[in-house]
């Protein structure tokens, strides 16, 4: 046979093998694992978030399978790397659903990825459980009933810190949000709430995502004579900003306030970040027996303390498996949805309630401060105030509070 023909056939065979031949339909038996698919970010600049989701899955999976699994079936996690690209996210999600037969997706990191995957869920008839995505639209304008959000949303984070600041003596605030959906919405939400609390917003700027040099913005903040600067910047950008603000001695005059205070930042920036206040979606310092035990187990397995999305993902997994028990099935998606709506869950942070109208989990909000503690190798989030769920969760299907 000619070389060219052989190569063509080898190519086709290789493609076929790579894609996997049509899966045989397996009968559902007691031992078939319950699969949870994670089209998440494991490489590139947002990899730290996907890795948190993965860590939580590893811990939870180990624990629950040691106890016999859920409904007598082991839990199995399938991780796929999207690289932070929505087109890849949909492709990977489709692979998980159509090739691996997954009915429950989680771990989406970027809002654009979550929006794109969520829009496909009604077609695929699978549930997307958010434990990371903060975009308000996911439970408002872009909501569909196959989407569930277990985590604190962006508006809720801005709300928690706004409630705290409404009581503080600071009056003049500057808003610095990265120029994309989350940055703009967060600053917008914060501004609206501060203005309603009779405080003054003295300036707003939106540096592009990936800004390496914040000197001009630091100069503007200084000029504005603000007392506090509210930051809604993605992880790496906020690390850079905090370092440079410290070098310009801005942080001596102006208090940094962040919608998200996370351990990754504290490790990267170090002590220059001490005194920063903000909101945390899950601060590992919550002092309850359940959470302290979780932190100890997490540290024993991974050697680090759990960051925000480690905790949120763990809570999501624990909750959804309780919902499986309650519904008596992990195959009938409609029954799972019905069982999850209006259900309660005792989480690591406090009590959760899944609203039927927009599938947002009502949960406590936290105002924290980054402080030095000799017991830990990095700064930790000290809880300044805890707000009950109904005070920090927006009205149904909206991003508004009043």
């Amino acid at each position, binding site marked *: 046979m000619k070389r*060219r*023909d052989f*190569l063509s056939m080898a190519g086709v065979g290789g*493609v076929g093998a790579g*894609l996997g031949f049509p899966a045989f339909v397996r009968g559902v038996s007691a031992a078939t694992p319950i699969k949870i698919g994670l089209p998440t970010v494991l490489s590139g600049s947002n990899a730290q978030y996907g890795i948190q989701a993965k860590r939580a899955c590893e811990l939870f999976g180990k624990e629950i399978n040691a106890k016999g699994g859920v409904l007598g079936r082991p839990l199995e996690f399938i991780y796929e790397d999207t690289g932070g*690209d929505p087109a890849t996210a949909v492709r990977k999600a489709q692979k998980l659903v*159509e090739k691996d037969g997954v009915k429950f997706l989680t771990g989406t990191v970027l809002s*654009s990825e979550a929006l794109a995957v969520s829009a496909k869920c009604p077609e695929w008839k699978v549930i997307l459980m958010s434990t990371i995505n903060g975009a308000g639209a996911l439970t408002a304008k872009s909501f569909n009933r196959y989407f569930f959000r277990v985590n604190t949303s962006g508006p809720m984070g801005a709300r928690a810190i706004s409630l705290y600041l409404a009581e503080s003596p600071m009056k003049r605030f500057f808003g610095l949000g990265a120029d*994309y959906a989350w940055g*703009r919405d967060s600053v917008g939400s914060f501004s609206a709430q501060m203005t309603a609390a009779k405080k003054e917003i003295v300036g707003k700027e939106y540096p592009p995502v990936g800004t390496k040099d914040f000197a001009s913005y630091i100069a503007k903040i200084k000029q504005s004579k603000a007392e506090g600067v509210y930051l809604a910047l993605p992880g790496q950008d906020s690390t850079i900003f905090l370092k440079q603000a410290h070098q310009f001695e801005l942080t001596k005059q102006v208090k940094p306030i962040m919608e998200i205070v996370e351990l990754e930042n504290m490790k990267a920036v170090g002590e220059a970040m001490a005194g920063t206040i903000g909101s945390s979606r899950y601060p590992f310092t919550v002092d309850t027996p359940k959470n302290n035990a979780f932190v100890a187990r997490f540290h024993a397995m991974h050697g680090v303390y759990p960051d925000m999305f480690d905790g949120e993902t763990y809570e999501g997994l624990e909750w959804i498996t309780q919902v499986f028990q309650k519904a008596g099935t992990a195959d009938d998606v409609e029954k799972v949805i019905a069982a999850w709506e209006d259900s309660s869950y005792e989480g690591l942070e406090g009590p959760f309630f899944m609203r039927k109208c927009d599938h947002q989990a009502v949960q406590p909000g936290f105002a924290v401060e980054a402080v030095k503690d000799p017991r830990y190798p990095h700064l930790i989030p000290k809880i300044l105030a805890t707000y009950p769920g109904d005070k920090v969760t927006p009205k149904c299907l909206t991003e508004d509070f009043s």
Partner: protein
Amino acid sequence: MKPRALALVTAGALVALPWVLARYQLSILTDLLIYGLFAMSLDLIIGYTGMVSFGHAAYFGLGAYGSALVLLNFEQPVPVALLAGALLAGVVAAPVAYLSTRATGIYFAMLTLAFAQLLYTVAYKWRDLTGGSDGIAGVPKTTLFWGGPSLATPQAFYLLVTVCVLLSLLACRALVRSPFGRALQAIRENERRFTSLGRDPRPFKLVVFVIAATFAGLAGALFAPFRGFASPEVMFWVLSGQVLMMVVMGGIGTLIGPVLGAMVFILIQEIASSYTEHWMIFTGVVFVLMVIFLPGGLMGLVRGRA
């Protein structure tokens, strides 16, 4: 097997696949064909006219947004959206081509990048129209024509894509074999000689750029209903770089090569990333080896030239 017979058999096989392949594999193939069309359009510029463009994703993106907006807001049949997307891309490409072709070589490439980034920024910031950084999700697959059959099944949509790709391939092939196409290749071979013969290369470059952008726009217009969304990433320079890689991998100046190149490029990453989170090293090594050992790209291998 003679080339024409092989081509007919392959085309026939492609059309018959919906009855053979499982749903998931059909989806993957649809995806690959869309990017294949995108890569082929770039080959018109790179392979046949010798101009390297760093901004080709902008036209893919314009096609995607155009199609997404038509489908979401006006609920027209898919071919209307395809037309809208392709035309939008072509129309925007015209002034860009006019200004960019004043330069050559790397300077031309950087100008195409500059314009592409400008368009990207517009898509990114015009939140009311484009959804901003979140993009537009929930783009539906509608029908083939008014009152016609739905395209919402994987099989139907696959057939639409296959037909579009095959027709585009035929059109491009006819283009490169025409006198216009031969003039392009003359420009690629030796632009100075072309000019010294008294002919102006610029109109040719301009026209081929617009045609290539239109086909890229068609690919993007197919992408939006297929994936159900459009977001700024489809216009970003990273995608422009990736489609450039696809063309090089497949074989510059062969039209079919880039289609194969797109398929291999995506499949390598898909398969590698499912096996290891360090897939980037694997794909990097593959690229390096391909460049060193396959001077003609994949088509060079297939044709027996080493």
